[in-house]
Every structure is written in structure tokens, then in C-alpha cells.
């Protein structure tokens, strides 16, 4: 029953763009039907997840036909269900948002294609999550990855969009290549393509398999050195697509890592250490790069790198705990990572949708061209502010709960292991604390400069509140953030089911390991004080308090351009991370004469992996391989000849192998 529901949900999501193909290009009904189908898909997915988590209805189902002689299975266990819910949920909320954000009427050229690709991302991701066979997994993976390419390049008339799209395409091909390699290697070990546990594998083989798969999955998840496609794609895609990319596509990479690790026997200690250290680097550097960004969506994209880092820290702890036989560390790490998957999906989607609303209403995503939007878009400001508090991991919202679980895992690990591992866990705590402080700095900057103060441009001054549909989509996400923050117990059945399918030998007792009840009490205390403060403000009639100008030291002509900008706000911290960020500064030149000339200041933060490493390397590679061009004659019959030669060579090699 549960797996059938999941299949129906995946099919509904994948088909959500189909009605639009037969409706007129500018018909709003197409948008609404896509949102409706995705909404139904999310409801089916939620029902399936509830069946698995509450009733324990884990199932597998074999497809009634064979593909290339293989029996294809799909299934729904705790882990699949845990990822299926945010996959479909975020996609459905984003498609609801798109009804007003990307209406068919004003995007006649791209709306139909985008709608189709958008549904296919969700459908492909759903298939990945429920696949129990390498063929189904890779098929879903490819559908998702390519549909994401077509969604990112919806506005392909813009140069930056094409560039970001091609970088994404190159990365996703590389990731698929690594996965093909991993599954082929799995097949060569025991002649099976099925995704089932292989407890008898020896350590070296499983480490090699995990390493190969990890590269492919981490490329998709956007962990720090492999994040090169992420900022550009998130910044240039339509905003509801960015929300889905960040909220769900990255998480499929995490799903792959967790699923693959669950199939293998416990790995070596150094693997867990590697994932943990990679997570720490990703988290600290991701937030440091976010601090220096000038564009709202690019800033949010770098925060995805940070949050993937926090998730990987939890995954690393889980791997360590499993290897070392510390079930408490294992369940806390995994629970923290998984809950952070949900939480990040919720608040990052919320923040992207808020950013989209800002961009749509004020025609700019440049942080330093905005300002004062809280008076003009009050509800968007409230939603973005809630998302900002949540992503900083501050109570009483959901981000706090998952970060606390990761903290607890690290603390337990430091107490249980001692020695070098203990010190590693301690540095993990320090890194997470630093990330918390930096994230708060970054989001108070983004929220403050965009929404508070005075508008810096006329466009920002004339902005109006977003349409109701967009507000409803944001309200749904904000509500979910609040509910998971105040009552995290609600997620415990789903978490425990997922942990059980990760490691069947582990009997998770999260309610004993994590202080959910006390978190609820503290969160409720905060909510009560918010209500009390609002009542006090009403009683003091603060709304009618006399109004005057902001204190300006008596200066006669203050202008909005004198406000602190996001660059100046972050300058101190960017300076402290100069060794890693290497900001480029074009200092103003006022000229040598007695009268200064007009001058400008320009700062930029090039991405180290993309702009300093990958692109120069790619240019060098293109240059170095020009001599190879002589085979490219542009004549079809010579190409056919090449193919024949390749087949012959392969055939001979295979025969030689057999003989």
C-alpha cells in the first residue's frame, strides 16, 4: 500500500507539467493544474510517509516486466520515506508560488518548458528515493539532473544563465559518471545491480565503493570543494527553481551518501573522520563566502554550502559511531543530519521564496540597492525574518533543534572517544559555534539591509506587497518551521524509522538521547514572552508614539545612501577571513590634483574553486588538446569509421579478456 502510494505520488509529480502542453501557452489554468497535481503528489507522499513511520508499513514491489533481463524493484522504507516527504512537499509549495511568480501569461516563451522540467525534477528525485535497483536509481537521477538543467536555463537568452547552466551540466555529468562507476564496481563485486545490503563485503572494497559514490553524491550535494556549480545555478535560476534546487536537489545527494553507506558494512574510522572534516570545512568556508556576497540569491546559495556542511558533520558522526560501536553517537549524528535535511529544506525554501518576492516587487536582488522593504512588504519581511532566525539555528525555530542534535553527537563523541578523535569532536563543536556566529552575522546583515532602514533606490521605495498566492506559499513554510521548532517530537517517528533502515542493528531511542521535551518548554517560554511583549506594546500604545527623525548628530541633510551597506557591515569579518576569501578590491582613485575626481569602489569575491582553479584548468585543457582536433574533420563518413574502429577494438579487447 505505502509503496503504491509513493509510486502514484512520483507519477503525479512527474506528470504535473503535462496538462500545460495541451493548454494554450498563456493559459493560467496550466500553472494551476501543475500546482494542483504537485499538491496531490505531496499529499500522497505524506500519506505514504505516515504509513511507514507510524504503522511501520515498509514494502518493496517488483515491476511486472524485466528491463535488460533485470528485475526492477522499488520500495519504501524509513529512509526513503524520510526524503520523499520534503522532495514532494517543497516542490508542491514552490509550484504554488510559481502560479504568481512565473505566470504563463508573462513568460509565454519559457513557462511551458519550465513547468514540464520542474515537475520532472520532483518526479525524478522521487524515483531516486524509492529505487531499489541501480537502473531505476540512475534513470531517476538522470531525469532529475537533466530536468534541473532545463529549469536552471529557463531564461537562456541571458548570458549568465547559459554560463551557469553549462557549468551545472558539466558537474552533473561528472557526478553521473562517478555513479555509473560506483554501480558498475558494485556489479563486478557480486554480479548484482539491486540496492540491497552487502554485509559480507571486505573493508577495502567497501571503502573504494563508498569513495567513488561519495564523489558523485557530494558533487550533487555541493560540499565545499565540489560546490562550483552551486552559487551560479542558484543565483540565475528562476527563484522557485532555486528554492527546489537548494531545498531538495542537494538533499538527494545526501540521500545517496546515506543510502550507499547503509548498504555497505561499517567503514574505516578514517572515512568517518574524512566526512566530518569535509563537513566542518564546508560549513565554515560556506558561511564565510556568504558574508562577502552582494547578491541576495548568491548569498543564500553559499549558505546552502554551509548547511550541507552541517549535515555532512552529522553523517560523519553517524559513520564514526557505527564503526566504533557507539550507538548513541551514531543515532544523534544521523538524527541531526536527517532533521537538518528537513529543516534546511523548509527554511532555505522559505528564504528563497522571500528573496524572490523581493526581486519581483523591487526589480533587484542587489542587497545594497534595497532597504526599507519591511514597511512596504510587511508579510514578506516577517516570513524572511523567520527564515533568517531559523537558518541561524536560533531558538525557538526548527534550525536550533537539528543543530543541537549535531552538537550533542559531537559532545558525546568527545566524551566517549578521547584522544585524537576526542579533540576532533571538540574542534567540531568550536567550528559549529563559529558557524553559528557567522551565520547570525550574515543573516542579520541580509535581513537588516534589505528590509530595514530607508530604501536606497526609487524602485525599492515604490515596492508593494507580493500577491496572496506567494504569501500563502511562504506562510506554509514558515508555519512548518515554527511547528518543528516548538514540537520536534512530531518528527521522531520518521527519524527513528529512517535510522532503523540505515542500521537495522540499532534500536534508536531518540526521546532518551535528545531533550525534545525541554526544547519545547524553552520554545514555549519564548513564544509566551513574545505574546507578553506584544501585549505590553499595545498597552503602552507604542504605535501612536510621537515620531521624529533618526538621530543623525544634527547633520542637516541625511540621505538613504549614507546608511551602512551590506559590504561595510561584513567588512570586518571578510577581513578576518581574508586568507581564505581573497577578496578583490578596486580602490577608488581620486586623482592627484587639488580637486578630487569622481571615483568608485568595487569589491568582489571570486569563488576559489570555480574562478581560480577549475576554469583556468579547463582553459589549459582546451588549449593543450587542440592538436587532437585533426580527427574532427566534419565529415560524417569519417565519424562512422571511428565508431566502427571503436567497436572493433572493444570487441577484440573483450574477446581477449575471455580467452
Amino acid at each position, binding site marked *: 500500500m505505502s509503496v503504491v502510494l509513493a509510486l502514484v505520488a512520483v507519477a503525479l509529480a512527474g506528470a504535473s507539467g503535462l496538462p500545460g502542453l495541451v493548454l494554450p501557452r498563456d493559459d493560467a489554468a496550466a500553472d494551476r493544474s501543475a500546482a494542483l497535481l504537485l499538491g496531490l503528489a505531496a499529499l500522497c507522499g505524506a500519506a505514504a510517509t505516515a504509513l511507514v513511520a507510524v504503522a511501520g508499513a515498509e514494502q518493496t514491489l517488483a515491476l511486472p516486466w524485466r528491463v535488460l533481463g533485470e528485475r526492477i524493484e522499488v520500495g519504501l522504507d524509513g529512509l526513503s520515506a524520510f526524503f520523499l516527504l520534503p522532495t514532494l512537499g517543497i516542490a508542491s509549495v514552490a509550484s504554488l508560488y510559481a502560479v504568481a511568480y512565473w505566470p504563463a501569461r508573462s513568460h509565454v516563451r519559457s513557462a511551458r518548458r519550465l513547468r514540464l522540467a520542474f515537475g520532472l525534477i520532483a518526479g525524478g528525485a522521487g524515483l531516486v528515493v524509492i529505487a531499489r535497483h541501480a537502473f531505476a536509481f540512475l534513470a531517476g537521477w538522470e531525469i532529475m539532473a537533466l530536468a534541473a538543467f532545463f529549469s536552471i536555463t529557463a531564461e537562456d537568452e541571458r548570458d549568465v544563465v547559459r554560463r551557469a547552466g553549462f557549468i551545472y551540466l558539466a558537474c552533473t555529468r561528472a557526478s553521473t559518471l562517478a555513479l555509473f562507476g560506483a554501480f558498475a564496481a558494485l556489479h563486478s563485486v557480486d554480479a548484482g545491480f539491486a540496492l540491497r545490503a552487502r554485509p559480507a563485503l571486505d573493508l577495502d572494497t567497501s571503502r573504494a565503493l563508498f569513495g567513488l559514490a561519495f564523489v558523485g553524491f557530494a558533487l550533487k550535494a555541493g560540499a565545499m570543494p565540489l560546490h562550483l556549480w552551486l552559487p551560479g545555478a542558484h543565483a540565475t535560476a528562476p527563484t522557485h527553481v532555486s528554492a527546489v534546487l537548494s531545498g531538495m536537489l542537494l538533499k538527494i545527494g545526501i540521500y545517496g551518501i546515506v543510502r550507499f553507506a547503509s548498504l555497505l558494512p561499517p567503514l574505516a574510522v578514517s572515512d568517518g573522520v574524512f566526512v566530518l572534516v569535509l563537513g566542518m570545512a564546508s560549513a565554515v568556508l560556506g558561511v564565510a563566502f556568504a558574508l562577502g556576497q552582494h547578491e541576495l540569491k548568491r548569498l543564500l546559495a553559499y549558505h546552502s554550502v554551509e548547511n550541507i556542511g552541517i549535515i555532512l558533520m552529522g553523517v560523519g558522526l553517524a559513520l564514526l559511531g557505527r564503526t566504533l560501536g557507539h550507538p548513541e553517537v551514531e543515532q544523534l549524528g544521523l538524527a541531526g543530519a536527517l532533521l537538518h535535511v528537513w529543516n534546511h529544506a523548509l527554511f532555505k525554501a522559505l528564504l528563497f521564496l522571500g528573496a524572490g518576492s523581493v526581486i519581483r516587487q523591487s526589480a533587484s536582488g542587489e542587497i545594497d540597492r534595497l532597504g526599507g522593504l519591511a514597511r512596504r512588504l510587511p508579510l514578506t519581511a516577517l516570513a524572511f525574518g523567520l527564515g533568517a532566525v531559523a537558518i541561524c539555528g536560533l531558538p525557538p525555530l526548527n534550525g536550533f533543534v537539528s543543530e543541537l542534535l549535531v552538537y550533542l553527537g559531537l559532545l558525546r563523541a568527545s*566524551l566517549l572517544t578521547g584522544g585524537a578523535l576526542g579533540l576532533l569532536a571538540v574542534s567540531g563543536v568550536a567550528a559549529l559555534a563559529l558557524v553559528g556566529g557567522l551565520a*547570525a552575522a550574515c543573516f542579520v546583515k541580509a535581513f537588516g539591509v534589505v528590509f530595514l532602514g530607508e530604501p536606497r533606490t526609487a524602485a525599492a521605495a515604490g515596492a508593494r506587497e507580493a500577491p496572496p498566492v506567494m504569501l500563502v506559499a511562504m506562510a506554509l513554510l514558515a508555519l512548518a518551521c515554527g511547528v518543528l521548532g516548538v514540537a520536534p517530537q512530531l518528527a521522531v517517528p520518521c527519524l527513528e524509522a529512517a535510522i532503523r533502515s540505515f542500521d537495522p542493528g540499532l534500536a534508536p531511542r531518540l526521546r532518551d538521547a535528545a531533550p525534545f521535551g525541554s526544547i519545547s518548554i524553552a520554545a514555549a517560554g519564548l513564544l509566551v514572552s513574545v505574546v507578553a511583549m506584544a501585549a505590553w506594546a499595545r498597552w503602552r500604545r507604542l504605535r501612536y508614539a510621537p515620531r521624529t527623525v533618526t538621530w543623525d548628530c544634527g547633520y542637516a541633510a541625511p540621505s538613504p545612501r549614507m546608511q551602512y551597506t551590506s559590504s561595510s557591515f561584513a567588512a570586518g569579518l571578510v577581513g578576518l577571513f581574508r586568507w581564505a576569501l581573497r577578496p578583490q578590491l578596486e580602490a577608488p582613485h581620486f586623482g592627484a590634483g587639488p580637486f578630487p575626481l569622481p571615483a568608485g569602489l568595487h569589491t568582489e569575491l571570486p569563488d576559489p574553486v570555480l574562478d581560480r582553479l577549475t576554469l583556468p584548468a579547463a582553459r589549459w585543457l582546451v588549449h593543450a588538446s587542440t592538436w587532437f582536433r585533426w580527427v574532427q574533420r566534419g565529415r560524417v563518413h569519417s565519424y562512422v569509421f571511428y565508431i566502427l574502429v571503436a567497436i572493433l577494438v572493444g570487441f577484440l579487447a573483450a574477446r581477449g579478456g575471455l580467452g
Partner: protein
Amino acid sequence: MSGVETAVHLAVILLVPPLLLGVIQRTKARVAGRRGAPLLQPYYDLVKLARKDVVLSRTTTWVFVAGPAVGVATAVLASLLVPFGERVAPLSFAGDLVLFAYLFGLGRFFTVAAALDTGSSFEGMGGAREVTFSALAEPALFLALLVLVTLHGNLSLSGVLGEDTGARWVTAVAPVALASMSLFVVLLAENSRIPFDDPTTHLELTMIHEVMVLDHSGPLLGAVLWGAAQKLFVQSALLARILVPLPDGPAPLRWACFLAAVLALGVVIGMVEATMARLRLRQVPMLLIAASLLSAFGIVLLVR
């Protein structure tokens, strides 16, 4: 923890913090050779501010009012995690030290947001300094608490402060001393005291905390001062509980001992303020990183 003890705890956190400010100010005055304001002056200030009217900037929104209010609420909630005159705090659970740190983070988020809400470049500057220094203070705080966690094998503040701090002073002098020094630096930085910030400075360009609240007036300013005093009191209480073990005895003796320790710490802060000049702003990060390193050494000493 019974209802009476929680009520006493709440009464202390609501009423005593301004006295700590008074003690610090009186110490500073005495060391400088002045007579100084009455010990109860901060209370008179709060009462005066509470009776005044509010004037708001035309630029501000609800965030401006939320800043001081969240500051008070988070400080009171954070105090519930620290045992004052008892062995166990009113609210205690494994990992509550994370909540302790993050509650102050929430308060800071709204204080800085309220500063940015005015659109003043002075207040933006103060906010930028506040978040920069606190981002560095956060790891120092966590590492200092981790020394205690490693020492006691317990993950709650009540667990590491409640039982046998006195015995630990004997068995692990160096780590506890290092952690205490680190916590003292964090205490001064987080509460904008000299050498990080001068609470009595009169030039906007040199301020950190004071410049963020330039536009708050009347009861709102009172709430800012009250919340700041509570934050100072809670963090001093944490340090005082490490430095001065609680005696075994009846409740009044324990509470008196606790309050005496906190006020004595106030005297120490006053002495520091009276004898030191503030650091140049670009040297502040170095001191905070040094505080983290002190605690890191403490942990290295403990981990074998």
C-alpha cells in the same frame, strides 16, 4: 526544583542585576578617587526611564521595539539554565549549554536588527562590530564550557556547575583556571565592558553597544539597560559558580554566598575597567582568539 526555588531564582534575575552595575560603577569611582553615584543609581535610572514617554524614529518598524524586548526575554530564559544558589537550575537537560549560548545569540540578532531598523549609519556600524566580535566570542564560550564538560563528563550546565567544583579545583587546577580566564574575557566582550568597549564613552564612532541603542528612548531604553544588566549578571553567575564553590548548608547561606561571589566579581570587573584602557578595535579579535586558545589548551590538558 520546587516552585519556591524557581520563584526565588526569578526574583533574583529580575531584581538584582542593576545592583551589579551599581557595584561596578562604584568600584570604578572609588579606584579613580571619586565618591561615585549611589549603589542603587541604576534602579533610579530604570524607574525614571519607565515613567517617560517613547519617541520613535519615522524609519522604524516593529523590529525596533522587538530588540529590547527580546533582549530581556532571552536573558531571563538563559538565567533559568544556570544554577544560582541551588545545585540544579530550574531548567536543566543534556545540551542546555547550547541553548544557553544560542539564547544570547537570539537576543543579539534582534538587538542588531533593531539597530539597523533606524537606518542610521552609526547604529549600523555598532551592529557590524557587535556581530564581528560575538562571532569570535562564540567559539571561546563553547570551548570554555567544553573544558568543564570534559572534566565532569556531563552535558548540562547544572551538571558541570552543581556538584563538586571545589574538588575539581584541587584535581584539575590548570584546565579550570584556563577556562575561567577564557570565560572572563568572553564576559567582558559579550557585555561590552572595557577593554572591548567603554560603556560610558560619549563619541558615537568609538562605541559598540551604546551606539546600537542611540534611538531607543524611555521605557524601551530602560528595557535595553535592564536586559544588558541581566545578561551581565547571568554570565557573571556562570563564572562565579566556577570560581566559588557553593557551601553545603541551608538555602539562605547558599544564596548569600552566591550573591556575594557575583558582586565580588563585579568588583573585579570594576577594577579592570578602572585600571585598563580600551583596546584598539583591530586588536579585539586577537584577544578573543587568544581566549579560544586558552580553553583549547585546557581541553588538551584533559584529553589523554
